[in-house]
């Protein structure tokens, strides 16, 4: 065991040391929030296998504290972005480099009245009172120890406010770039989206790495979707294979609110997307879908928790993944129906394809139900590509790799087709095709390199 393994709270000391210099320091509630994060992280420690939600994702590589918080002022240009159909979409663009918003790279012109898209660090200084009712209100630190660490480091990120009944004309595109230099670098960005009653918006996130150094990206996103508001949220995680990418999203939905989430994870050595959705008002509706692609030694984790805390809410989830090399996939999804949340409709499907003899999948769907008038279900499958189907295609003259790629694409398209914004769906499809093209090779057993 490495020496660091005895340290159950790596990075805490760094946080305590630097946070007094952060934006908003000295504001009582901001200090209190950071302290609460530090305390909660201290109480829990870095997640270990004993923690039900971290059973299959091992964070021992974080123990030795080799990651240092990124320096304050990195200066780089915008690297080329993947999938043109997404990056080419007219949008309000907000760019983070190493966890800090880079105003020069943002394109936020023409923001309508009642809309604010800006850097969190800026408001922490200029108008912290605007954040107070929202920041730290959705995320449950005791359930998300890594979010607690993020809170101890809370400093910058994206903040979006959309006022009542406003339908945002263009998507918000958050581009987050990690550009590690020589040493191992850590970033702790914090994002907040507040949608007032009846507001509608689309948020796209692109997470990429600009250089090859190793990085640890620990993101927390809080989303508040008020009565009858609608938020569509599409995330692309394509970080380098030397990075650890942990993303924790907490979303609160009021009555009649709608939230759509699609996460495409294809990058990082360890990539984890955890989404906790709280359906707090009657008739709230959420879709959580995703696709994951992994090869080599990658570990990709999708964890969801949906709390039906009010009657007549709906939640649908479809997660599909393709695992090659010696990669490991994790899907954990819990649907929790509280007492009184009658007429709940909660459905979940998780399917994984193993493309190689050394790949591995761990799945833990879970239903916890305390109301009787419910329709809840989950389904899970794991296995290799149906050889009969491959043979059928081959017998019609299609090459074996093409046949395999076609079938994998078809398998994934059921999830991709749920994406409501067409250019995003197309962009993600293109990415999947490219990935399959370079990872489902010509070898007879189809073992991706």
């Amino acid at each position, binding site marked *: 065991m490495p020496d660091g393994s005895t340290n159950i709270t790596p990075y805490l000391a760094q946080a305590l040391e630097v946070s007094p210099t952060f934006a908003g320091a000295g504001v009582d509630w901001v200090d209190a929030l950071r302290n609460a994060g530090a305390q909660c992280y201290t109480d829990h420690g870095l997640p270990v296998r004993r923690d039900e939600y971290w059973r299959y994702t091992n964070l021992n590589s974080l123990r030795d504290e080799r990651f240092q918080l990124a320096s304050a002022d990195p200066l780089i240009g915008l690297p080329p972005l993947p999938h043109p159909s997404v990056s080419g979409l007219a949008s309000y663009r907000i760019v983070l480099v190493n966890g800090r918003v880079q105003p020069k790279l943002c394109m936020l012109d023409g923001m309508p009245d009642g809309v604010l898209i800006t850097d969190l660090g800026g408001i922490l200084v200029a108008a912290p009172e605007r954040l107070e009712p929202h920041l730290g209100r959705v995320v449950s630190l005791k359930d998300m120890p890594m979010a607690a660490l993020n809170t101890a480091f809370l400093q910058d990120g994206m903040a979006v406010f959309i006022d009542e009944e406003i339908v945002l004309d263009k998507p918000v595109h958050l581009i987050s770039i990690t550009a590690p230099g020589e040493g191992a670098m850590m970033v702790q960005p914090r994002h907040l989206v507040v949608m007032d009653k009846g507001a509608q918006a689309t948020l796209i996130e692109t997470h990429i790495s600009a250089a090859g150094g190793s990085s640890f990206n620990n993101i927390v996103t809080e989303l508040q979707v008020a009565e009858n508001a609608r938020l569509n949220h599409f995330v692309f995680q394509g970080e380098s294979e030397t990075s650890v990418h942990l993303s924790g999203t907490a979303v609160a939905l009021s009555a009649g609110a709608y939230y759509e989430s699609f996460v495409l994870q294809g990058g990082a050595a360890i990539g984890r997307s955890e989404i906790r959705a709280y359906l707090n008002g009657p008739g709230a509706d959420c879709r959580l879908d995703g696709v994951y692609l992994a090869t080599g030694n990658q570990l990709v984790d999708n964890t969801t928790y949906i709390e039906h805390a009010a009657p007549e809410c709906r939640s649908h989830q479809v997660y599909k993944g393709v695992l090659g090399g010696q990669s490991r996939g994790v899907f954990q999804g819990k649907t929790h129906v509280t*007492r*009184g949340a*009658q007429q709940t409709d909660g459905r979940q499907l998780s399917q*994984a394809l*193993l*493309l*190689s*003899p050394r*790949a*591995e*999948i*761990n*799945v*833990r*769907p*879970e*239903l*916890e*139900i*305390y*109301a*009787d*008038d*419910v*329709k*809840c*279900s*989950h*389904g*899970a*499958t*794991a*296995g*290799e590509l149906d050889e009969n189907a491959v043979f059928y295609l081959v017998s019609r003259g299609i090459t074996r790799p093409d046949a395999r790629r076609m079938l994998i694409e078809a398998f994934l398209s059921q999830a991709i087709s749920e994406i409501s914004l067409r250019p995003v769906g197309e962009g993600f499809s293109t990415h999947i095709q490219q990935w399959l093209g370079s990872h489902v090779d010509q070898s007879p057993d189809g073992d991706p390199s």
Partner: protein
Amino acid sequence: MVSNTEAIDQVRSIGDQYKYGFVTDIDSEFAPKGLNEDIIRLISKKKEEPEWMLEMRLKAYAHWLTMEEPTWQKPKYSAIDYQDSYYYAAPKTTEKPKTLDDVDPKLLETYEKLGIPLREQEVLAGVQGAPAVAVDAVFDSVSVATTYKAKLEEQGIIFGSISEAMKTHPELVRKYLGSVVPYGDNFFAALNAAVFTDGSFVYIPKGVRCPMELSTYFRINAENTGQFERTLIVADEGSYVSYLEGCTAPQRDENQLHAAVVELVAMDDAEIKYSTVQNWYPGDEHGRGGIYNFVTKRAACRGRNSKVSWTQVETGSAITWKYPSCILQGDNSTGEFYSVAITNNAQLADTGTKMIHIGKNTRSRIISKGISAGKSDQTYRGLVRMQRGADSARNYTQCDSLLIGDKCGAHTIPYIESQNWSAQVEHEATTSRIGEDQLFYCQQRGMGDEEAVALIVNGFCREVLQTLPMEFAVEAQKLVGISLEGSVG
């Protein structure tokens, strides 16, 4: 007219209560209360055990002292005082009777009341054409009678109490005991290994198809007594056995602990079918009393083409905590788990299975039907693991939960781990309630509420119930209805 109504009411009032709650007034011999090495030596001495058995018990006890009681399961219970219980209670006539005529009539009467046939001829005179059932009757800590022993011995089948088998077939018992569930496996398995008092032992020799159902009937009678039985079934190459287990206990206000261990071993081409109808006293509607049923059941499918099938109907106990499992070691071996669990009033259950696929082409099938009513809470917890070498293994799991009323809970926690790309795992789970339209449809055809619920729930469980041997299936169907009485209103 009046007398008729009275009779119906009387029957109803019996049905409403736990049918097996009576106490047999019989002189029992107890070891002193509490748990220590001396008690374990005493149990071992009482049973005239070989030295190696005592050693195993003491090792298990020493290990148990280092272990912590598990807390990860959903049902929580107040701490058990392990020193405040008797670990050995036996009817005074401890000499095992040679024939049934020597058995204490009070015991015979008890089993008659429970509907368990201990007289061989009575079984034979029973339903036409019905296959005979051989019974090992375990009363508190000891086996009091085993029927059909002689007839089974003709085919080399060993069936009887495990204490006796330790004397008559020490090599077999020593070879297999603890080979599937080692004493260090878990807290309650360690406790059991230290203090188990009796249980059944079955050995089916090569190529023998056991000609009748074997069954053990467990009865807890004495107060402040835990029951720690140990069952070991070994099916040698090409053999087959169907084994039934039933359990009841008197109605008491305090909780009693039942921590059993069941080990099954199936060699090449052997098949074991193990059916349980668990009807321990569940406690009253306020959650007072009832059995803590903390059981470790595991099967090793050691041989090629071996097969183990668990069927359980769980309606009793205040808390049930058990996961009958299969270790599928032999290539082409098959594990099955069929379960109906019903919780009502304040009952808690955390049950399911583990299917560990090690060999090639191994198969498993899990069908679980959970029904929660009243204020009860129920969890299905299961693990399906495809290990690296489990080429072309298959699993199918279907977990359905039914909720009756808005004060109960139903949870499903499956773990699926696959390390083999050619293995296929398929899992489905649903949770729903009895449809208002289904209830009305039955009522419109003249059925009362409870009759309608019993009918619909039996339909919901049918896939599982029909895997039971016939005589058990009928009993289980009735039990489903009785267990849910008072759950609709």
